[in-house]
């Protein structure tokens, strides 16, 4: 075979080819070691661009990098302090009137409401309003605005701007616009005084401190967007192209919602100049970056290598280990998100309250918290989460298999249920998945078979929606998170259990007595808190007996950060989930680069 004759050739070729391979490998290794040295050593750095003039309508496209606020040369400039916060979910919209999702994470830094609310202390922190008052039954509210506040475009804050902002939100009617439902009329008294007339009594101070739909913005946006009026879709387009019109301590300079959002300090913010303002720190970071990192494992990894400074979520199993790591800090705060299992109260055998009670007593709550959340949650007591007003400690179900079996027998099912129940949960949520698997294993012990089915949230919701018309076709059990739009027990109780709330009352629970109790309670929130609490307690007692849903746990927020981030605890507020108030951080001890 002539092939044999080529054997001689192969030797030299082999050598050459091997050399090529070795060279490639060595080259790659050299690159790796060389580039792993600190980059400061590389002298070729282009100076930050300082040519951009400060224009009122600062247009920043998604691709542009942040510009430097002060014209300095690269060599003498004080290095900007950068804090990178990893967010698990991508950012959503950028329109402050309609945004009702993840974007509040940065909106709380760029925009300001009239008031902030600290739910753990149950007190307000003045923001754009310095003083406020209401008439006795809470139907007329007057807010006195802070003087000398300017929006990022230089326009001064006036009562007209507040009115225009809130009216735009109401007129668009999207997102959290419903919070303003009590408002009948807004009246401008003078440049710094604004009055709200309500249709019915409501706690407008809490509404004004809402995490969604309560932002005040510059009325000049109509001009910038080239729109006819504030409700022109062009304004929304202008916002969603990455523009901001807020007054907050940070400005939006890069808007790439899938990957990162870059915020830069607003040196003119009123809060920096105020002495003792609780929401400001002299050593706040110059640049705050929200980096989208869609997985907790990676967030932890990036945190440990110093690539990010604050992680929104780390795997809960790792928290113990992280607490002992000298380079990181762990802050644990209550969060007002809770997990419940909604029961289809219209589908046999779950329409029988005894069966529902049996299920409530057959769930090992402690085990769920330990397995699903590595112990980092609190066994729920009622549908109102711990730490919020309206929460009561006497609403826990006891885990008791014998009792559960007795109840089931009493309901007419001594040998368990012959139908397999369908439990749906949101796909991709590891906590829900583990919870679902524990529930499946536990209910098997009292003779109830469960099929667990992960679905996307939209699918899950649309299946559940069909239950109002045809409960037989819908799921049996539904694992479900809830968190409030603004801080009131009514938000939880109305949405999940009031019979008018067809969208989220996915237990299909109808109880006129319950409805009446919470309807009355909400109007008393501002004027008679004691009475309101009493009514809310009574309402929750009814739910406890009727078991339309089983509250499983109240979440805790675990934020992990590198050691140099000071004041992290102060920068977290459960009323504004996922937000880090960067303006209160102290980064003087932070190592950069």
């Amino acid at each position: 075979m002539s092939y044999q004759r080529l054997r001689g050739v192969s030797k030299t070729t082999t050598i050459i080819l091997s050399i090529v391979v070795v060279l490639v490998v060595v080259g790659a290794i050299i690159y790796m070691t060389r580039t792993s040295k600190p980059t400061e050593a590389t002298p070729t750095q282009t100076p930050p661009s300082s040519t951009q003039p400060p224009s009122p309508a600062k247009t920043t496209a998604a691709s542009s990098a942040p510009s430097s606020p002060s014209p300095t040369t690269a060599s003498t400039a004080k290095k900007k302090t950068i804090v990178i916060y990893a967010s698990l979910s991508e950012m959503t919209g950028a329109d402050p009137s309609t945004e009702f999702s993840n974007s509040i994470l940065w909106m709380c830094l760029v925009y300001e409401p009239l008031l902030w609310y600290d739910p753990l202390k149950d007190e307000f922190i003045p923001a754009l309003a310095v003083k406020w008052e209401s008439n006795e039954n809470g139907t007329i509210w007057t807010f006195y605005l802070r003087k000398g506040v300017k929006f990022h475009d230089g326009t001064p804050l006036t009562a007209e701007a507040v009115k225009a902002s809130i009216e735009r939100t109401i007129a668009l009617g999207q997102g959290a616009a419903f919070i303003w439902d009590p408002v009948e009329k807004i009246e401008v008294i003078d440049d710094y005084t604004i009055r709200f007339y309500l249709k019915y009594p409501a706690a407008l101070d809490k509404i004004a401190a809402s995490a969604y739909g309560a932002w005040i913005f510059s009325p000049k946006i109509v001009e910038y967007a080239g729109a006819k009026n504030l409700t022109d879709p062009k304004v929304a387009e202008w916002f969603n192209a990455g523009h901001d019109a807020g007054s907050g301590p940070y400005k939006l300079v890069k808007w790439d919602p899938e990957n990162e959002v870059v915020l830069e300090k607003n040196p003119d913010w009123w809060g920096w100049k105020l002495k003792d303002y609780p929401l400001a720190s002299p050593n706040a970071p110059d640049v705050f970056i929200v980096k989208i990192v869609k997985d907790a494992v990676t967030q932890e990894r990036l945190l440990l290598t110093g690539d990010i400074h604050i992680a929104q979520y780390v795997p809960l199993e790792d928290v113990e280990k992280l607490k002992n790591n000298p380079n990181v800090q762990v802050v644990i705060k209550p969060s007002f998100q809770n997990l419940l299992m909604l029961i289809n109260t219209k589908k046999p055998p779950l329409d029988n309250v005894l069966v529902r009670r049996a299920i409530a007593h057959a769930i090992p709550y402690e085990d769920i918290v330990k397995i699903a959340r590595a112990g980092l949650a609190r066994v729920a007591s009622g549908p109102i989460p711990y730490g919020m007003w309206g929460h009561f400690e006497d609403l826990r179900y006891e885990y008791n298999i014998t009792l559960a079996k007795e109840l089931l027998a009493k309901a007419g099912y001594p040998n368990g249920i012959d139908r397999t129940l369908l439990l749906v949960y949101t796909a991709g949520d590891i906590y829900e998945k583990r919870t679902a698997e524990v529930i499946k294993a536990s209910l098997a012990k009292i003779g109830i078979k469960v099929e667990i089915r992960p679905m996307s949230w939209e699918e899950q919701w649309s299946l559940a929606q069909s239950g109002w018309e045809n409960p037989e076709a819908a799921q049996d059990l539904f694992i479900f998170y809830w968190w409030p739009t603004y801080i009131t027990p009514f938000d939880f109780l109305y949405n999940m259990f009031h019979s008018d709330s067809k969208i989220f009352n996915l237990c299909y629970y109808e109880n006129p007595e319950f409805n009446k109790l919470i309807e009355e309670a909400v109007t008393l929130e501002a004027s008679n808190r004691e009475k309101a609490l009493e009514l809310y307690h009574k309402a929750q007692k009814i739910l406890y007996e009727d078991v339309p849903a089983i509250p499983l746990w109240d979440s805790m927020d675990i934020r992990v950060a590198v050691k140099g981030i000071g004041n992290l605890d102060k920068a977290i507020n459960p009323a504004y989930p996922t937000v880090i108030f960067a303006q209160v951080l102290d980064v003087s001890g932070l190592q950069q680069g």
Partner: protein
Amino acid sequence: MALEDFKIILSLIKQNPVSLTGLVIVAGFIVVGVLAPYILPYPEDAWGEVYHLEKRFLPPSLEHPFGTDDMGRDVFSRVLLGARFSLIIAVGVVGLALLIGVPMGLIAGYLGGRVGTILMRITDMFLAFPPLLLAIALAATLGRGLVNTIIALAISWWPWYARLVYVQVNSIKSLPYVDAAKIIGLSPLAIMFKHVLPNALTPVTVQAALDMGSAILEAAGLSFLGVGVKPPTPEWGLLVTEGWSSINVAWWISLFPGLAILVTVLGFNLLADALREASDPRLRRILLISGRV
């Protein structure tokens, strides 16, 4: 395919240690896949019916060779049972795709003309999709589940077989013996099934065997993307994905099922590689053209 062909291939495989390894792996996989439910050390763990609070995240040991997972279940049992699901997926996908693709190609090739052109254009339209993309879109539409995964993959898969059969039939139908059959008055159907199909099937069978590995791999990919089988089915891709969230504390949860995929698919591919080497150059060219290696 004629028996002699198999004998020749088998002897060729025996000569080459690498191909033999492939054969052993595939044989082992099939045996485990069939017997899995009867040889599980912890059957309840494998089926995901229980949880063990005290046994979470145990590293590999004699008692649990692959460690335990976030629910305290034995990973080894779950991986063993996973072999069965992977086997079902492999056979299901390839079988279903053959069931659609072979008749399509056969009809298009044998009838030719306008019907043939239309059928092949439809096939081409499906082939214009990048391979896994259509499967992902379909799987997302159908929802998660074992059967849906199989359907989604098979639907994105059959055009390959249709085209392969079409090419084969086209070359066979002009051969003298088919003409002879026509002359003696056999019906077109009889000719198709008695003479054309058996001869066209050889390369398709090889391709199908080869594809079993890819089916397992792609099903795992679907699981990873969250559109594959649903928990707690211990499909290997899903096991890897489920271990991801606790990979810093328990690497074994993801490592072992992934290794199982790797070894099994490697076995199929080595075997397929051997078949390709062994079979005729014409077939080899077809396999290369079809873009699947």
